[in-house]
């Protein structure tokens, strides 16, 4: 009698357990909000300018996040989510421009300009250093700047007035 009751309970328990495990196990766990936000952080919707998708409060962005949740639940990787949105809405959904075609310019131009600046500066410095001996003299002649200390001091004093 006792063992029969035990078997009955076991059967019921098994029956109950089956749908639960069926819900939980086969596809990956339902994605958490944090997982969705981690993906959405690197995305922008085309309407809400400059507000990252993970924090944008508009209804449209909420739907986008729901879409991300769905994709992740279906087992999509982060990259696949990005690809999906780029396919439908274009490159501008990505926070970081993809390294393709014309977009390379965003990565290349600043270092090139900065390097050009450094090179220009280097040559300018070299030119400044060469005529050390000659320059001060010619400078004084040209502009007729006061040379002696008294005049310099007077200039200073006048400059201080205002």
């Amino acid at each position: 009698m006792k063992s029969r009751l035990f078997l009955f309970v076991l059967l019921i328990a098994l029956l109950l357990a089956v749908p639960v495990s069926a819900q939980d196990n086969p596809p990956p766990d339902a994605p958490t909000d944090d997982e969705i936000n981690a993906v959405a952080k690197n995305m922008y919707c085309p309407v809400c300018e400059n507000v990252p998708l993970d924090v944008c409060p508009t209804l449209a962005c909420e739907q986008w996040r729901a879409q991300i949740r769905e994709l992740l639940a279906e087992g999509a990787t982060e990259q696949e989510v990005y690809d999906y949105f780029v396919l439908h809405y274009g490159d501008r959904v990505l926070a970081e421009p993809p390294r393709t075609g014309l977009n390379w310019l965003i990565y290349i131009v600043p270092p090139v300009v900065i390097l050009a600046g450094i090179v220009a500066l280097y040559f300018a410095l070299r030119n400044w250093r060469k005529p050390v001996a000659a320059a001060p003299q010619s400078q004084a002649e040209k502009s007729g700047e006061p040379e002696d200390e008294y005049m310099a001091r007077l200039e200073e004093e006048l400059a201080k007035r205002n």
Partner: protein
Amino acid sequence: MLASLGYGALVITFLVSLYGVGAAIYGVTQNKASWVDSSRNAMLLTFPLLTISALSITLLLIQMDFQVEYVASVTSRSMPMYLRITALWGGQEGSLVFWAWLMAAFASAVTLRDWKRDREFLPWVVVVSLSTLAFFLILIIFFENPFVRLWQSSSGEIISAVWQPAGTLPFIPADGRGLNPLLRHPGMIIHPPLLYLGFVSFVVPFAFAIAALITGRTDDRWIRVTRRWTLWAWLFLSLGLVLGGRWAYDVLGWGGYWGWDPVEIAAFMPWLTGTAFLHSVMIQEKRGMFKHWNMFLIILTYDLVIFGTFLTRSGVLSSVHSFAQSAIGPLFFVFIVLTLTISLWLLVRRWAELRGEEQINSFFSREAFFLFNNLIFMAILVICFWGVVFPLVSEASGLIGQAIPALSNVFTGQKITVGPIFYERATGPLWAGLLVLMGIAPLSAWGASTAKTLGRKLWLPTIISFIPAVVIFFLGVSGAALLAFWLVSFVTAITLYEFWQGVGARVRTKGENVFAAFWALVGRDRRRYGGYTIHLGIVLMAVGIIGIEIFQTETQGTVPIGGEIALGDYLVRYDSLADFNTPDGRNVARASISVFRDGEYLTELNPRRDYYFESQQTMTIPGVRSSIEDDFYVLLVDWQPISTQSATFKIYHNPLVNWLWFGSVILIVGTFVAAWPEKDRAAIRENKHLRVQAPASAD
């Protein structure tokens, strides 16, 4: 009536500005001093005139005269008084008037200075200032007129016009559309005015620079005259940026203060060149070098100011197409190209006269470090500029693709987004470089300085700076964060060491007590010690930035009432939610949550969502618990409107962020110290004595 008065004042100011420009040029070319004086009076007059205009708008806003289109577009009956006043800069037309009004205030203030020794500058300062003002007045009068009123024709059509068209009656809407809810924040009262003040006050040093270029008085006089103007301009701009960050933190609800948004960067770019300028003018004053460069920097700063206004006012950021449609966009563009070309042409014309009087003798000298500092600021500028401009370029490049179908695959015209990752990655190492320079440069000497002399001064504070770094290391911090914190303690150690040495020297030689010695030390060289104080402020701000950039954590979760969400040591319990309407036209959903840390109850927070019926906009107001250690920042993301039984919260933990705000206060103090007018004659004499000696010892 008021609208006509305000509009009339605008038009008269415009005419007065044109007259001032003409009179100044005529006076200086014909050598007629009275004409120059007359142009000066014209410039003085612009401020009272524009005050009438700005006051008219303000009164119309206060009275809620909805027949005026601008008033109807930015105010509504439900708005409190202070918001109706600040609505002056809440919309396009009003903010342009406000810009012009501040510009006029500065222009008028400049006329009041003592010109005895700089009379040759006067006409050209008038020309530059009034041309800039006239440009903005053109935009206002012809394209973005805040005094346009609404009229109804007999057929019921609504017409906007300044004067009553024939056969129409005034049309007065029952209520206005109201101010954008994002702008209904106390931060909005001071943030835009400070930013605009920073913008317009950079026009003054620019005007003097151009005057120097035109007159050929290319010594450092223009820099000495404008030194304080530049410092105030820099302070206003810095505060405008900081308050903008604070506003974003409190109102925009994304857990941060700076999102590398193009609008932010638009205001940030003149700050970069302005800061570089503040440093490099010192080289010209002390060593007579970099004269071209200083001219170039101030020209760049001026045009970046105009460019920043252009970016935010023309609509070009949202789309290149809206730029093409707006009338003021192309005008801005023309003005920028024109001023830049003329200024650079003037600079090239004086190139030979601006030759440096000295050379850089050592890469360890102060001037060399300033040069590196300028180089880094320029590099950051290049990155920011390109990041802002490239999306526009990529969108506009579609035109090429359209014209040449073969290239349409390359020039797709697809707009791209340049987000924070790009800027952070590109500028991060540069900021670190600036911190290094900020540490080393104060210890270097002008002129000749060798690695040896520098090293002798550097070793002690450097060793001291490792102490906090080691402590932090044992607390478990490593990698980039450790490096960043070490840099912070490095700069702090050296700056404090400089103060310490100065005070120590006075105590020893003059027998003063420490406080008197400190007071006298700072008082005798305000510029230097004010600058150091600013550096300390910047370093504290850096602590806050490092805290939030590297250590920010976040989580999001949906919980029923009584449910809990954990983040680090913190725990949040959702207690209740109230959903109600307010008399000023909002629906408010306000959650009550309890915050626990390590199991101990800390406080109750009320994150909320405001929905504005008029504008159909939502605002997410965080619930924040602030301490010197961190901010605990909770957002109400979502809730079940009917049952209010469960809600979604987003939680941020922002370590050290308050140091950012605290540091900006120190920055203000430092700027005041540096810019305060010197009155003490004895101190000046002492200073002068030192200055005369300095070049002798340097050579």
